[in-house]
């Protein structure tokens, strides 16, 4: 596409219509450009061209035989016919062959209703079969706990093979045998070790690869579809939530070229069964040393009683990894009116500087990775921290002319890269311009650097950030029109929290101070806003208010539990790692007495006599825009100004690691998910383990 120039156009005629397209596109794409739909199975615009299903046949003038439009480049003066009776007959014949070995089990197939083969057989299928011989039966393959295979349904389009090889970077699937005996499989039985394997289900045009957790749960037309935003990592992938009644049955990707293209990670897709388990569906108050069910007024009263007559500056609040911006804003305002600035949303990543937006976001943007020509990864394993972003790096890698090096864990990232070492020493070497890769960065036109939370969530995080900034400046990563300095956040709430200033002011306590203060009595009350991922045992002797949706770690130390909503149950703002402000949509209602999060804080403020000044979500959002103008524009990214951040000083000689150990269990939802627990068993606990026997 980059090569295209305005004078580099090709003219051809399709169905009597003159079309001008960029040179190099296929006949199929040329047809699509004027709205003519060509049926296809094997062709997929994000994969290489196979040309083996033959469904896209069209007639070309002076060609003796029909041509496969997906594989034929459009060229000057071509005359293409897509709607003649002959074309129709040819496609019907192709369809008849495809259906020869395809079982007639649509009524029990999960793909039924959203199946390419089914849809196109309406257009091109015969009403009865002329085939009386035996149909072929193929043994089902084991591909891990997420994918259910019914290989007899396979029409051998090889999309899955190409996806695994090209996008996921795990060349484990192939065609075994030949002719009638050809099968798709892994040959050696094994689970697909990819964090993107769920996309195989979407890419399969028939029901051969289906979602195992969703198996036989619902029909596609029974469900309500809600377009929303994912919070399982910090990318904010576009998702579609499919629900029936008040239950979420599955999550699928939506197209967003700027963020996730059309892929989502397995955690995004499959952790949704965790939304139905271990939920907090009513308030609890600790009485006689035990948490007991309570009503909302009782819970609020307990809080009011606790705070009555106590020093307001000794209250603290911590926000968790999936908190939305609305509730963080409301809680920040409430804390302010109570007289406290002891609040933090950064967890161990206290080194992040809320005053410098460029220092905590992914400045290059995800789509911008495709413009880079060299990349240095510091203390990050993007494959598990943000699998979809990793796929984008791989995409850039496959375009060629892109070198990648990593300082930190030596892992398989699905693309070739050089490991420069594990610790700060290697970072120093780059900063001083030593080594081969320093030369690569020096020569690169658009170099980029990705620093992971593993390198920031440590005692010398501020020094690491400072050194990373110096590297960015030394190699010209920050110039007019290009910013190659990137922080890869892992929490969906983080950038939003920093944008809204959910951090301590000068002289007040941050995360570490609050936890320590709670242990030694300096802090008498801690408000946890969906905050679970820290050592909550330190809060045992403090009065803890836990607002969240799962009975996870934070709830275990709580004195009062206020049941909130999960991301699928509220219309709320999240800011992804690029700084893109996005709005999620409510697909279902929170269970039981649980409420949308910001309304809980608003109601509590009333009881405490500190009424917050907003009664509706739009009012609250204008308050957010007042705090930080980025909240005035949704779905866009505006460049952040470069500044000075970090602290100079020595780095502790400890190796950089990723801050995620187990990709499948990073938050209360995925920890409650049965599917994620199974994946964890197969892929993490018994790495390379293969079949566990639970697959039946």
């Amino acid at each position, binding site marked *: 596409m980059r090569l295209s120039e305005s004078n580099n156009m090709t003219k051809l005629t399709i169905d009597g219509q003159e079309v001008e397209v960029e040179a190099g596109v296929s006949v199929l794409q040329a047809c699509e450009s004027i709205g003519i739909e060509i049926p296809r199975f094997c062709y997929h615009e994000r994969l290489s061209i196979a040309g083996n299903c033959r469904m896209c046949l069209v007639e070309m003038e002076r060609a003796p035989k029909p041509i496969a439009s997906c594989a034929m480049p459009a060229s000057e003066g071509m005359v293409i016919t897509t709607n003649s009776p002959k074309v129709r007959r040819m496609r019907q014949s192709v369809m008849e062959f495809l259906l020869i070995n395809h079982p007639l089990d649509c009524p029990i197939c999960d793909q039924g209703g959203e199946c390419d083969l089914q849809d196109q057989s309406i257009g091109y299928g015969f009403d009865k079969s002329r085939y009386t011989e035996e149909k072929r039966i193929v043994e089902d393959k084991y591909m891990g706990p997420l994918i259910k295979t019914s290989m007899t349904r396979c029409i051998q389009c090889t999309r899955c093979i190409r996806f695994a090889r090209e996008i996921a970077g795990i*060349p484990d699937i192939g065609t075994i045998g030949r002719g009638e005996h050809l099968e798709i499989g892994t040959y050696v039985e094994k689970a697909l070790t990819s964090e993107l394997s769920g996309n195989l289900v979407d890419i399969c045009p028939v029901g051969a690869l289906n979602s195992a957790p969703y198996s036989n749960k619902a029909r596609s037309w029974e469900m309500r579809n809600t377009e929303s935003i994912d919070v399982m990592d910090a990318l904010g992938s576009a998702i579609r939530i499919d629900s029936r009644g008040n239950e979420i049955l599955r999550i699928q990707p939506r197209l967003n070229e700027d963020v996730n293209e059309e892929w989502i990670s397995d955690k995004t897709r499959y952790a949704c069964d965790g939304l139905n388990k271990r939920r907090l569906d009513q308030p609890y108050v600790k009485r006689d040393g035990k948490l007991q069910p309570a009503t909302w007024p009782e819970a609020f009263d307990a809080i009011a009683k606790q705070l009555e007559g106590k020093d307001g500056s000794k209250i603290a609040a911590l926000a968790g990894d999936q908190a939305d911006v609305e509730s963080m804003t409301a809680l920040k305002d409430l804390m302010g009116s109570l007289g406290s600035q002891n609040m933090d949303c950064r967890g161990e990543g206290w080194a992040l500087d809320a005053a410098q937006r460029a220092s905590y976001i992914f400045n290059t943007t995800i789509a911008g990775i495709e413009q880079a020509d060299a990349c240095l990864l510091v203390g990050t394993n993007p494959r598990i921290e943000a699998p979809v972003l990793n796929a984008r790096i791989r995409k850039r890698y496959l375009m060629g002319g892109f070198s990648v090096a990593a300082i930190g864990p030596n892992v398989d990232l699905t693309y070739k890269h050089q490991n420069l070492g594990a610790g700060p020493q290697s970072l120093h070497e780059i900063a001083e311009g030593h080594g081969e890769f320093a030369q690569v960065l020096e020569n690169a036109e658009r170099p980029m650097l990705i620093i992971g939370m593993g390198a920031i969530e440590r005692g010398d995080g501020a020094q690491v950030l400072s050194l990373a900034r110096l590297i960015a400046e030394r190699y010209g990563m920050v110039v007019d029109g290009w910013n190659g300095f990137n922080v890869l956040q892992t929490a969906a709430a983080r950038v939003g929290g920093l944008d809204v200033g959910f951090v301590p002011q000068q002289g007040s306590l941050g995360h570490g101070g609050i936890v320590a203060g709670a242990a030694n009595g300096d802090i008498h009350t801690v408000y946890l806003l969906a905050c679970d991922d820290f050592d909550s045992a330190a809060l045992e002797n403090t009065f803890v208010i836990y607002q969240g949706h799962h009975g996870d770690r934070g709830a275990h130390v709580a004195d009062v539990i206020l049941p909130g909503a999960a991301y699928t149950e509220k219309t709320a703002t999240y800011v992804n790692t690029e700084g893109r402000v996005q709005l999620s949509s409510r697909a279902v209602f929170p269970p039981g007495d649980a409420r949308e999060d910001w309304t809980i804080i608003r109601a509590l403020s009333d009881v405490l006599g500190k009424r917050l000044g907003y009664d509706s979500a739009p009012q609250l959002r204008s308050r957010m825009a007042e705090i930080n103008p980025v909240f005035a524009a949704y779905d866009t990214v505006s460049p952040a100004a470069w500044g000075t951040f970090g602290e100079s000083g020595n780095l502790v000689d400890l190796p950089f690691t990723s801050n995620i150990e187990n990709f499948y269990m990073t938050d209360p939802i995925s920890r409650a998910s049965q599917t994620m627990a199974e994946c964890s068993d197969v892929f993490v606990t018994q790495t390379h383990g293969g079949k566990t026997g639970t697959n039946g």
Partner: protein
Amino acid sequence: MNEQNTIVEQPTSFAFTLENMERVKNHIAKYPDGKQASACMPLLDLAQRQHDGWLPRAAMDHVAEVLDMPPIRVYEVATFYTMYNLKPVGRHHVQVCTSLPCWLRGSDEIVKRCNEVTGTEFGKTSNDGQFTMTETECLGACVNAPMMQIGDDFYEDLTPDDVERILNALKNGETIKPGPQNTRHGSEPVGGLTTLTQGAAKGEGS
């Protein structure tokens, strides 16, 4: 050729012998730098010859490693071509062609006699481990039909009696001259020339 067929006792490791490793290098050297995967087929053949005529999974993995290919790409090649055996074969691998020309010239009789002499049938190995029978499609020797291939050699212009003679000889460890088993040397007409019998050829020859 599917996975079920390969469930046999697999050796745990395989490595080319030093001598074969030299051949491996020669094969790889035939292709441009970075295109070493092109040597996949000759290397698989080499591995098969080194390993009693069949390819265990360890050998395919070894080839993948030598050529820096994902193993599945090697499995794809090995399962596609019928000349790679994915399970053990007998000392003599008897492949009988049953495609149309051979069939018209009596391949049914050839197959029947093969079965009688070897005591086994297509897809199986005889109990004494001497013979494995495989049905093949056209091997390109139609002009000498019916024919069969044993090991690397073609035996052509067969009669059932020829088959019996050949197989018994092999059983006894003797060697038989490959090629046409009748009076022919190649694919010339059986009863002497029938065309071009006059002219220059006549004056010089017999």
